[in-house]
């Protein structure tokens, strides 16, 4: 506060204001954002403590919580006082008090029981043993053979009656049996992910042109279409694939087709948005140049537009394919089909060795997909430069191209069958479908339903918060092991590096929903199990991002600090931490955002939270209430998206 100001702020007055109404003193001092934030903080904390007190048995801690709350209130008074005197404020203290309250409540409501991790460890050893010895091979007569479970997951060869074609060709006799390959659940999963991607491309490309501003501004009425299309894509995208799965099942019935459709719908929206942004970035120069040569519209598109959009479209599609393959492993939980459905069934039967085998199969496939997709994208974006001085042979005459074309076609047909795609089903939905949709849209807003949904939603948010914290905490030390620039020193550290990377990659390849079963067995059904499953994926993802952030450290400041004669600890504090803490925090916030989305579905596997509620309502055919849950999820996820983007924006 400058001494020349005509009304020197009265510190006592400010303190009294803040004592009566938190934030009022700060507002009086014209710190609007600060005052409102303090007021909002007090209100939210009070609500949360009261909510936890009425909904959960927390007699033991509730008084302590109110005590900390009072401290927070007093801090706010103190803050106003120091602010008025122009002294530095103690932001961190206030933040700390608020965080303590939030975490203690989170701990209580997500039902965290660390002792169970210990007391029931003996029981869960069964699962760990299964993970080490998954049911893939059996020893029969001294030699290892694929087990029956291997056949279910990967595929097997069975004797089937010879198909007519072979009989007619004279290759088999009528009525004879021939060995026929039958593909397993993993192949089905791959087919679902692949078909969803292909179908999504077909729809997303035309839609993306309607969502591109530079194109629609040339069309009469285009601006309206543009905004309508953008809004539509954003809404569809904000509903998770799993929730789309629930809705689609009502339409076309349980099975691979439902899973494929759910993935397709979500992918169309996601790809449509990315494509349209790419269309908006087209360079108009080449279009002008090709027009000037006297080319017609088709030629302009072929020579000036397509070469510009194909590489980025391909890159986005490959990225989406990767995501779709991951989602295909879990969409079966609700929609049927794929390895997700298989996992649900084996767990119900208590077949942990089969479950373990499925996890390994998923890990291998996803790691491969991840690798192929990343390498391919890298090549596209780098754009390999050909240097041969000879004209390349035309594409269509080369035999290799023909081979790939035929192979692609064969894979497409095979996947079409494996994913059980049946377009007729789309036009003959279950007779109840219209009624279900009507119920679903007319959401139930009666107070007790809202109360229940809100309760589970808060639990979900806390689950995500705790999982992010736990996963992040474990990831910090681990990420140093997985950073190449720190671990290149000697053979031992190199081994540790590859080990750490390997662990992160394997853990990252499996979706949280698939982990839930382990923790349900370990700590019981409920939010705790879901939280732990989320923490595992968080650890894997954050660990990778953290280690990359460490690898990207600029050595310049290190050198500069070393040159001042600093020791190792001083170098860490002054040269390394300032470089890695901002990206770490940014990743953590981003991860919390992602985790809230995933936390809304871990309930489908027994992980508690809002997903459990949704599953129950759908199971009991209470579509009004299910609609409430979905609406709440859409709103919360959108709000979190916005908040996390805003916070991260301010940080960089």
């Amino acid at each position, binding site marked *: 506060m400058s001494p020349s100001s005509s009304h020197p702020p009265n510190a006592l007055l400010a303190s009294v204001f803040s004592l009566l109404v938190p934030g009022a003193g700060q507002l009086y001092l014209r710190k609007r954002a600060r005052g409102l934030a303090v007021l909002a903080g007090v209100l939210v904390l009070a609500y949360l403590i009261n909510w936890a007190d009425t909904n959960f048995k927390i007699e033991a801690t509730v008084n302590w919580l109110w005590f900390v709350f009072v401290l927070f209130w007093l801090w706010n008074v103190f803050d106003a006082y120091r602010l008025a005197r122009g002294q530095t404020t103690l932001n961190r203290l206030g933040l700390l008090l608020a965080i303590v309250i939030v975490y203690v409540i989170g701990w209580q409501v997500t039902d965290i029981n660390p002792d169970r991790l210990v007391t029931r460890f003996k029981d869960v050893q069964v699962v760990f043993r299964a993970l080490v010895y998954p049911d893939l091979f059996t020893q029969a007569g001294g030699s290892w053979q694929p087990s029956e479970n291997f056949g279910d997951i990967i595929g097997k060869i069975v004797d089937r009656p010879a198909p007519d074609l072979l009989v007619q060709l004279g290759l088999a006799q009528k009525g004879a049996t021939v060995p026929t390959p039958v593909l397993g659940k993993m192949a089905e999963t791959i087919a679902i992910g692949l078909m969803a991607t292909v179908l999504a491309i077909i729809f997303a490309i035309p839609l993306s042109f309607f969502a591109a501003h530079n194109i629609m501004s040339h069309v009469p009425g285009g601006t309206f279409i543009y905004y309508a299309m953008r809004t539509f894509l954003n809404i569809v995208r904000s509903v998770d694939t799993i929730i789309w799965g629930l809705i689609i099942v009502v339409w076309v019935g349980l099975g691979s087709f439902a899973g494929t459709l759910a993935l397709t719908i979500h992918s169309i929206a996601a790809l449509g948005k990315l494509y349209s942004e790419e269309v908006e970035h087209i*360079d108009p*120069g080449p279009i002008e*140049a090709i027009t000037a040569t*006297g080319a017609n519209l*088709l030629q302009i598109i072929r020579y000036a537009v397509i070469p510009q959009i194909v590489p980025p479209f391909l890159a986005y599609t490959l990225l989406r394919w990767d995501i779709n393959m991951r989602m295909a492993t879990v969409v079966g939980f609700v929609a049927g089909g794929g390895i997700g459905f298989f996992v649900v069934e084996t767990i119900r039967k208590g077949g942990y060795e089969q479950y373990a085998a499925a996890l390994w199969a998923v890990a291998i496939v996803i790691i491969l997909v991840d690798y192929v997709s990343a390498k391919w994208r890298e090549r596209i974006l780098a754009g390999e430069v050909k240097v041969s001085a000879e004209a390349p042979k035309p594409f269509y005459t080369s035999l290799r191209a023909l081979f790939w074309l035929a192979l692609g076609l064969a894979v497409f047909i095979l996947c079409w069958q494996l994913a059980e795609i049946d377009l007729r089903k789309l036009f003959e939905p279950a007779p109840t479908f219209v009624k279900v949709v009507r119920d679903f849209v007319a959401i139930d807003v009666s107070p007790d339903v809202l109360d229940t949904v809100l309760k589970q939603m808060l639990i979900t948010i806390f689950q995500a918060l705790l999982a992010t914290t736990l996963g992040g905490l474990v990831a910090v030390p681990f990420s140093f092991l997985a950073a190449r620039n720190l671990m290149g020193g000697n053979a031992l550290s190199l081994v540790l590096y590859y080990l750490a990377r390997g662990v992160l990659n394997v853990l990252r390849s499996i979706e949280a929903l698939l982990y839930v079963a382990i923790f349900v067995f370990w700590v019981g059904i409920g939010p705790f199990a879901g939280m732990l499953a989320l923490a595992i994926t968080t650890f894997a993802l954050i660990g990778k991002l953290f280690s990359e952030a460490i690898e990207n450290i600029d050595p310049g400041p290190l050198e500069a600090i070393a040159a001042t004669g600093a020791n190792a600890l001083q170098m860490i504090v002054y040269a390394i931490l300032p470089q890695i803490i901002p990206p770490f925090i940014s990743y953590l916030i981003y991860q919390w955002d992602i985790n809230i989305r995933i936390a809304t579905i871990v309930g489908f596997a027994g992980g508690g939270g809002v997903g459990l509620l949704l599953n129950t309502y759908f199971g009991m055919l209470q579509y009004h209430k299910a609609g409430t849950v979905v609406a709440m999820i859409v709103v919360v996820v959108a709000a979190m998206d916005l908040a996390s983007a805003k916070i991260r924006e301010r940080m960089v």
Partner: protein
Amino acid sequence: MLKVENLTKVYPNGTVALREVGFEVQDGEFLAVIGLSGSGKSTLMRCINRLIEPTSGRIIWDDTDLTALSPAEMRKMRRQIGMVFQQFNLVKRTSVMTNVLSGRLGYVSPYQSLFNYFSPADHARALRNLERLGLRDKAYVRADSLSGGQQQRVGIARALMQEPKLILADEPVASLDPVLSHSILKYLEQMNKEDGITVLCSLHFLDLVHRYSTRAIGLKEGRIVFQGLPQEIDDAQFKTIFGQEAERVTIL
């Protein structure tokens, strides 16, 4: 012969970029167009091949009124008018060869060209043009791996594929350093002298105008304020075109 009469261009937002512009260009001339940034040089160039539709006025090219042509007829006519751009406007991710061949699009069968098919004669022509611009060995590299000067030469090769009678060059050297500027303008001069192609070229530097053009016009706020031989641009003329504060600078 190119004759521009009373050409006016008003953009949809109300900007008047050209006001009643009129001039003539004889076959075989190298006409420089000079003027400050925003004086309407690019607009004028693009009105001539109707990449931008003129608001009023006429453009007569060899007794044909270009402004009266239907879009299909205009496309045919564009084959005779090559264009070279300040930003080169190559399709960056495709090969140099494809970029050069695309100059042929107005001549070839539209359906074949959709499959990237060009006749062996066109391929040979493309290689000849690249050879002429000293880029034969770069034919099959990606366009964006070339330097700026090389990219502009590809741009010229693409224009040559049209077998044009007229080349419109819109500040072809404004993105290049002085040495490369001379090399590019020498190529344009060569096309002008050896092939008899008429060249309309907008330029920023008076030196370049003196050195390469046979005649010049000066634009200011969309009006023609000078027409004559390059040597006639004295200090007074210079100040009318570029404003009182302008100083003459020389490059190399």
